């Protein structure tokens, strides 16, 4: 059972702005029935001011998809197109008092329908629809979309990418590729943000090691059924405890070596990792 807010429940049970507009100035359509959710957004736009005077929707999907669609129409009514484009998926979620993490993709769908509708009005193509290479075959999600959503929502794990885009949620075949994208995005970032310029104090070193293990290494191991925990840092010796699959499959040594490589790269060449 999902923990929906009262607002989600209310907009699901009594959605506002339902149905097709007669002679809409623009229509934005995203998703498909095969994927399990789809949203068609209809806009009336004032030609002079570029203001959205009316917005309605039709949605095929779960309770949070319906509520997100309804929320979107409520949010954008009265806004100019440029103002509307500033609405993020997080704004939609916030309007609803939050969405369960697994359901964030519903808010992303709202944001995409909006982009599609504005693009349709302006006579262009929506940004992501056709660009990029399909990564998730089950739901037809492109690398462009995955990257965009990762950056915009600061996602760190494959699980979150699935929650926000559905990619990886079908057969799971594309999980390694999503991991790769995450790695590309965040290892660049971590190097930019976190690479020590001068000598670290012990406390800085430990907290950096801790952060890298938590944010970078754990999610990867967890997706393979394993886990790792930082036990202690003794000088340059990092002691970790491996659990689950990575321990059982007798790959503990390899895993520890990989962790060491990562920490050497990002923190200090002198570090040595030992598994407990």
């Amino acid at each position, binding site marked *: 059972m999902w923990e929906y807010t009262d607002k989600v429940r209310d907009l699901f049970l009594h959605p506002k702005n339902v149905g097709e507009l007669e002679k809409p100035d623009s229509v934005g359509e995203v998703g498909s*029935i095969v994927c399990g959710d789809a949203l068609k957004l209809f806009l009336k736009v004032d030609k002079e001011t570029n203001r959205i005077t009316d917005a309605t929707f*039709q949605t095929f*999907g779960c309770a949070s998809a319906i509520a997100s669609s309804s929320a979107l129409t409520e949010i954008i009514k009265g806004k100019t197109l440029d103002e509307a484009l500033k609405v993020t998926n997080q704004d939609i979620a916030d309007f609803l008092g939050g969405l369960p993490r697994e*359901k964030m993709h519903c808010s992303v769908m709202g944001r995409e329908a909006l982009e599609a509708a504005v693009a349709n009005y302006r006579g262009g193509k929506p940004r992501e629809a056709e660009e990029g290479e399909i990564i998730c075959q089950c739901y037809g999600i492109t690398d462009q979309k995955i990257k965009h959503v990762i950056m915009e929502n600061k996602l760190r794990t494959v699980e979150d990418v699935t929650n926000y885009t559905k990619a990886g949620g*079908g057969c799971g075949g594309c999980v390694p590729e999503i991991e790769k994208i995450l790695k590309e995005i965040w290892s660049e970032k971590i190097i930019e943000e976190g690479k020590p310029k001068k000598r670290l104090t012990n406390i800085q070193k430990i907290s950096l090691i801790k952060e890298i293990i938590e944010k970078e290494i754990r999610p990867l191991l967890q997706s393979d059924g394993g886990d790792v925990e930082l036990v202690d840092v003794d000088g340059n010796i990092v002691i970790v405890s491996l659990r689950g699959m990575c321990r059982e499959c007798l790959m503990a040594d390899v895993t520890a070596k990989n962790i060491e490589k990562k920490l050497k790269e990002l923190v200090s060449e002198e570090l040595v990792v030992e598994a407990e």
Partner: protein
Amino acid sequence: MKVVYLDNNATTRIADEVREAMMPFLTELYGNPSSMHTFGGQVHRHIEVAREQVAALINAEPGEIIFTSCGTESDNTALMSALEFAPQKKHILTTRVEHPAVLNFCKAMYRKGYKITFLPVNKSGRLDLEDLKSSITDDTAVVSIMHANNESGVIFPLNEIADIVKSRGVVLHTDAVQTAGKLPLDVRKLPVDMMSFSGHKIHSPKGVGALYVKRGTRFSPYIIGGHQEGGRRAGTENVASIVGFGKACELAKKYLPDENTKVRALRDRLEQGLLKTCPDSRVNGDVESRLPNTSNISFEFVEGEAILLRLNEYNICASSGSACTSGSLEPSHVLRSMGVPFTMIHGSVRFSLSVNNTDEDIDLVLKIMPGVIKELRELSPYGREVKK
């Protein structure tokens, strides 16, 4: 508002008689059945009574019943034990539609180097027995095939399956969690080596199960420790739940005819009514060979979670194979294996009844459902594709 509970394949209400039978063991009779003093030791006798009651439901001998903590533990134990005694054999044969208790166990074994064959099913959820025959090899350590499917209700022909598997001398385990109490089971006539059961599907508490191990079958315990259950399952017994489970089996035996008359009639009325009043709906699964209490219906162009939450407003409880309800975005593996189109899986609803359901329950669903489906279709961009 009264709860209309149509999700009995997920779990069931504890029967009043079961709760009463349990009460002494939740209050004054708290002794440890392994103790030397009378106060504790007397409890042991009640476990043995429960063992007889469980055995009686399937015509087993009491000594062939091991109490476990749940259906999942029974499944895991059976498979582990079979593998233990055939260490040189590295192949497990099962189906694509098993409960995760078997499916994910097999996947875990795959990661440890086992070969797994997941037999496919056809559109109506049936197995191809020729396929089963040709998939057994000299390397096969165990065959695990469920008796009836929890989602579709489809019943596999256990007699024929057992004949095929046993003619090859391979150990056969059956997950009968969904069949106990719904279909007659006679292990004396079934050459199945091990069979799993779960208490909470037959009106006893959650967290108790049983594993039938045919006399003469080599068995290796999964939970290791004390000498409880004759050394076959360690851990101080969940006495109250075991006693409740025993009572529930006695009741199940008594109500078995009702499942196939009263419950079946209610299910059929529900199903026929929904198919008639909700356009573009259809039944998933083999209607010829199906549990009497289960109906899995797909309503095209609407999404299952939305249906369930609208029904929830009327306190009607059911479940769905839709991706959105699975917690993993993955639509039902059972319906996918049956080749049900994605559009139909998203809108699938499983109703599962029990002897507690009444005509009024069915009336309410038949009254509410057409409106729910119609409204959701009006919300949907695909609604107009519905044939008028």
